[in-house]
């Protein structure tokens, strides 16, 4: 009888585990768009503050820029300050990306299926601004629902341009997933036409710009004084 019980347990345990996995996955898949974004937000909220060194390379038509270095400070809920010894130009929406950029009251959200990015199955969350005063009018977030992090963002940063940011992550202090690198491909702002000027031919699409941001030397949750953000021109990045 004990043998039978043991055998039954051996059979039941994997089944039970499989059932739990399926139910979790099912719960992830059936999460509403707002819940999905909320879960991602919770993941980001675990980081109260951080500082990180950023090095940026810009490959853009009609623009020559050397590699740029900067240090970014972030503090919840939305304080951002960036310092640089020299000059640095950093992509506005990607450099300090946080899901809180997408206020649920300012965006309509819908889940639009799934897609695999770098071997990871992601849920596609589409966000549409409810008002034309919001800077980012449309965005698609590709969310890794196992880690609740955003692996890709497609967005319209305005003026009819489009941008795609690919995020790769590193686990800081063994517990926080934070960006290790962001590769941004966007319509080159230097190739925009002036109003009223016709494009030379239908095929001449705007040139693409590629911006690569590398994040190193994270210092997380060590406390950053508010004075650091005082008079910051970079301010709260929204």
């Amino acid at each position, binding site marked *: 009888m004990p043998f039978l019980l043991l055998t039954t347990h051996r059979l039941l345990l994997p089944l039970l585990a499989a059932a739990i996995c399926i139910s979790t996955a099912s719960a992830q898949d059936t999460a509403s768009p707002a819940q999905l974004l909320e879960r991602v937000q919770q993941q980001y909220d675990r980081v109260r503050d951080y500082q990180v060194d950023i090095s940026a390379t810009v490959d853009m038509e009609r623009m*020559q820029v*050397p590699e740029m270095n900067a240090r970014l400070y972030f503090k919840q809920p939305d304080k951002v300050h960036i310092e640089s010894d020299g*000059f*640095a130009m950093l992509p506005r929406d990607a450099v300090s990306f946080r899901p809180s950029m997408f206020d649920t009251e300012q965006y309509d959200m819908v889940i639009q299926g799934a897609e695999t990015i770098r071997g990871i199955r992601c849920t596609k969350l589409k966000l549409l601004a409810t008002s034309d005063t919001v800077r980012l009018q449309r965005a698609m977030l590709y969310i890794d629902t196992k880690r609740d992090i955003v692996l890709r963002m497609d967005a319209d940063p305005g003026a009819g*341009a489009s941008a795609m940011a690919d995020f790769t992550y590193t686990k800081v202090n063994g517990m926080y997933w934070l960006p290790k690198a962001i590769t941004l491909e966007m319509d080159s*702002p*230097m190739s925009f036409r002036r109003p009223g000027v016709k494009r030379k031919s239908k095929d001449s699409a705007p040139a693409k710009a590629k911006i690569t941001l590398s994040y190193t030397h994270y210092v997380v949750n060590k406390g950053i004084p508010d004075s650091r953000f005082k008079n910051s021109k970079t301010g709260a990045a929204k």
Partner: protein
Amino acid sequence: MLTIVRYELIKTYRKLRTYIGFGLIGLLVPLIYWGMSFAGDDMINGMTRGLQQNFLFVGTLFNGWFVSNLVLNSLFVHVPFLILLVAGDVFAGEATSGTYRMILTRPASRNRIFLAKTLGSVVYVYSLVLFLAVVSVGLGLLLFGHGDMLMLQESGLAILPADELWWRFVLAYALAGWAMSIVASLGMLFSTFVENAIGPIVGSFAIIILFFILGNLPFEFFENLRPYLFTTYTDVWRKAFDMEIQAAGILEDIAILGVFFVLFLSAAWTIFRRKDILS
């Protein structure tokens, strides 16, 4: 020989007209900077408006290097005229003041006198360019600080890192000095023809303007003519601000300018040697 050069320099720097260029630069540059202190940021914003929609700008691009480069670009159209004020007077001035016959009856040969006048003119050119460098860069850095430099180039916008700018500016001014030396040699050539300095100054400047216009006309005939105009190469100093310095291109321009320098001076020397001094 050195004594003759020294006398030439004394003669040049004792004339009031030599200081017109220095005075103009000394007056204009602070005035331009005063104006820029009000509108400089707007200028940067205007140049980068398209970028600032999508990028956060950290640090400032409005600094001493930026204004110095702007001054170099704008003033360098007028610097040839300041050079010609002196170079056009080198031989004609002797005729005007009636000293031509006197200097040529001295034991020094015409060749030596010609060489001394050439060296004197080149020294003046470099002293004026050096003065422009000191006033524009020195005052610019003092008033607006330093940092990376934004540049508007034919290929678009470029940002040059601050730590490279010292040697780039030194190179640019050295090349500008060489380019202006060719202008001086043209002035000297015209100066050998006549006995009044006005003609060489106006004539040489007219040639420069004519060549500038011809070199920029967008017609095939004039485009083919461009390599043979010395004004095509006088902006060689701009190459010091290319993101990647093309040493071969710079050396080629220096060499071509050298050919024009030798050509103008050879013609001037020939006329000067054969000149029958009647005054």
